[in-house]
């Protein structure tokens, strides 16, 4: 589904240039659950941002089911993103002024889904995420785990082909962290492709494949056998 070739990304400040991605090649199949790991500053978040069309690389190619995404303009990138991708962040990034229901509804609004349909979809996902009795609450009234569930619900409500998760358990204790990981697995089992950046080997163990980055290079790739067999 995803074909990334020779991706390069350089950050420039007045004095120094930092190469964040240095000729990355990466293929992700449909329905796969891929973890990207590596030390701080290895470029894993940059890679995820590029995959989510939030950042532009200097060169390379990024094909998503045969569509080259790097040549799109801002508007086309926005359109592509809202139709095909969902995001889960380490710090949840829920809008504080909106309730749980409204936060989840937001991407549907940008996808111009009619109001009746929106209500149905949001209620459905709220039920699935087990946060029905929280739908009128504001984010500050929820625990970290609950907030991340809302964030996951928001990422899934548009039924995206690809979910990008950036350290989704980074701000959670282990119990809540596991809940979120199980949620992602369930999602993956229903066919959604997931790419996750993480520091935690424990979290990575939930995925089919683990890619290790260092200094902007892919240094190793490991198939998580137990999971892959399950997949097969």
């Amino acid at each position, binding site marked *: 589904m995803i074909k990334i070739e020779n991706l390069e990304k350089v950050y420039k400040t007045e004095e120094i240039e930092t190469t964040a991605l240095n000729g990355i090649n990466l293929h992700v199949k449909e329905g796969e659950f891929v973890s990207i790991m590596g030390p701080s500053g290895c470029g894993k978040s940059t890679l995820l941002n590029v995959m989510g069309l939030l950042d532009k690389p200097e060169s390379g190619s990024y094909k998503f089911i045969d569509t080259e995404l790097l040549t799109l303009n*801002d508007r086309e990138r926005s359109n592509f993103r809202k139709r095909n991708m969902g995001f889960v962040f380490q710090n949840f990034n829920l809008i504080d002024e909106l309730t749980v229901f409204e936060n989840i509804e937001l991407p549907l609004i940008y996808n111009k889904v009619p109001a009746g349909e929106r209500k149905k979809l949001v209620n459905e996902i709220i039920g699935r995420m087990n946060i029905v009795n929280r739908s009128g609450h504001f984010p500050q009234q929820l625990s970290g785990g609950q907030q991340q569930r809302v964030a996951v619900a928001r990422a899934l409500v548009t039924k995206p082909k690809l979910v990008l998760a950036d350290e989704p358990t980074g701000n959670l204790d282990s119990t809540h962290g596991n809940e979120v990981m199980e949620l992602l697995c369930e999602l993956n089992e229903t066919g959604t492709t997931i790419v996750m950046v993480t520091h935690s080997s424990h979290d990575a163990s939930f995925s089919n494949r683990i890619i290790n980055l260092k200094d902007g290079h892919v240094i190793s790739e490991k198939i998580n056998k137990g999971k892959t067999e399950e997949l097969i």
Partner: protein
Amino acid sequence: MFKLNLKIALRNLWRNIGITSINVGGLAVALAAFMLLMMYFTYETSFDKKNPNFDNIYIVGRTFPDFKTNYTPPPFGKAIKENFSEVVAVGKMKKGGFELAVSSHTSTVFTKQQLFVEYEAAKMFNIIPEGGLKKPNGNEFLYYLSKPYMQTLFPNKKDTKPEMVSIGSRSAEQFGEVRGSIVPDSHSNISFDAVSIVNEIGTGESYGHPNYFTYIQVKPGTDIASLELKINNLYHSELTKNGMVDEGEDVTETNAFLDPLKNQHLKPKAGSDANYKVLIALSVLGFLILVIACINFTNLSIAQAAKRAKEVGVKKVMGAYRFQLTIQFLIEILMQCLVATVLGLIIAEIVLPKFNSLFLVHLSIWNKENGLIWQLPVILLFITLIAGIYPAMVLSGFKPAAVLKGNFQTSRQSYWLRNSLLVVQFSIAVIFITGLLIINSQLKYMRTQDVGFNPEQVVYVKNLVYYTKPEVFAPVREKIMKIPGVKAVTVANAIPDGSGMGGNGYTVEGKQHSLSFLDVDYDYFETLNIKLKEGRAFSTSFQADAVNSAILNEAAVAKYGIQNPIGKTIRGCNIDYTIVGVINDLKAEGFEKAVEPTIYAINNPCGNPKTEIMVKVDEQRMAEVLAILKSQWSDINKRDGDNFRYHFLDELYGKLFAKQEQLQSVFFAAALLTIFIAILGLFAFAKYITNGRIKEIAVRKILGANDLQIFKLINTSFFVMVMIANLISWPLAYILTKKWLETFAYRIEIPILPFVLSALITIMLTIITVTIQANRAVRANPVDALKYE
């Protein structure tokens, strides 16, 4: 989506209610000031605009080598009408000089602005009595009174029949017919409270009687420059034809000009354009206040931007376009501006009575003619764009990948922009504070300086009878002096209230100069407590005093350079006066004009009639004396004694200070407003800066900095900016106040204290504001600040 955006906006504003209130409140106050000034501008620039002939009416004026006047001789208008076909109408007017009593059987009113208007002029200016404008027959005078006067005189009148009234003192038995009432247009250059409409005024008067205003109405599209030239040529030929040019005199020394009606209120050629300049200055001030408030709004919005960054990031991730977000923020700001506009209207309505009394106008927000109906939406859009476009662009421009990780910074460029803006704001505030303090000093000087006479406890009694000869006034004085508590009584041709005096040529020792003259009676100097420098005052003991004695003021003595003036002769009006005394100069015309060299005499055949009675009263017995004067007035002043009307001289003299007091009020309001806006701007900026330095503060605290050191750290840059603002403004304020002070003949030296004080005030306010903002950052637990990393 609009509903959701609205929810986000409202919840956001509510959560930051403090900042929102300051932001919207600051804008509302500035808007109120702007709206008031705009209404004032519209009002002042639209005198007579309702007149359908507004663009085609001109007044004919005359230019002399050293002045211009709108007074014209009556035959000139007629000549213009006869000679030029492009002039479709000519109408003359004349002002009545006296305050006249008009009485019915039951009551009396006093007309202060009697106007004589030709029928043609009445048509031109829409001077239409109730019941319609009628053409007088032959020499008929159609006399109308303003509606309130008519209602006072004939409260039960229902019909439209004429009524008989007595005009002047009842004892004079002059009667006239009032045709009805008229409602004068208060928004016209032609103002009156009684009007006589006639077919022609000044009939039989020649080119030597220039006492009339001549208005002409031209055909639309007339070439005014060429008409003016033709009228001027006609004027010259008429002067020559009527023998008005002496031998050797150049007829082209006086010229005729045309001045459009639209210039008459603010910048007449024959008159001062000071009001126009003041109006422009006020408009610029209003506009500046609004723009500064808008930019402040921008600053505060951007200072709040951090709180919205995540929202922008999330929305962009979900596919929102930048354009959508820009519009969203603009609409949010439009809503705030709308609230500010409504609040501004409320504030303006509250302040309006004070504004009206300060500027002597009757503005109303609800008057459709003030133009607010169409101006308000324009202003609203204007301020939304000015205040909103920059924050909307900054906010919608956030990069989602960065802000969702908590990194956002606005550019260095905007930092400079805001620094400069702050300096500009404070500079303006410093100019106004310094200006206000210097105006205060000058006014204090004017109130405490010896003006050379004492107007206190002097009652000025209104009167129409000529008391030019001392023997005619003697019985009146005698009767008034009998009232216990009266210290002195006199009559003169003018009172010292700045109303000016007549002038004439006088010769001393072969040197001729023009002097102002004041015709007085005995006890004039005693009544006004004017100090003699040399010689004596007029006295009944010296018979010559009523014939040819004169008293000069110091300025007159200086003008002639007379040594030992007492006993010397001064010749004027064919009389050889003997100088019997010299008085100290008195500032009868206030502090703006230098004291005129003046001659005081009892006998002056070239002078003006003495009608102004002044009575000096014992401080303790004022009420008593007034009561007795009132009850006995008809007996004391038999020929004009129906109504005892008086003013306190000190109040009349005090009116000379009114203009400066108005300026003082405007400066007070402007100083408050500009400092308020500057402090708001500072508040936002300090918040922004401290927010940006929270981490730095935390690190410094962990490394052992104490609170004071941190306050100092944050305050220093603001202190420097305010000092720069002071340094920029001081020379400007010095130049401006010096210019203002130069309009006074008697003035203070520019003191240093106002400059020091405005620096102290601005620095104090800055430190307080910044410290309040910094306090939050200093009090915060450094661990929390660093945890964000």
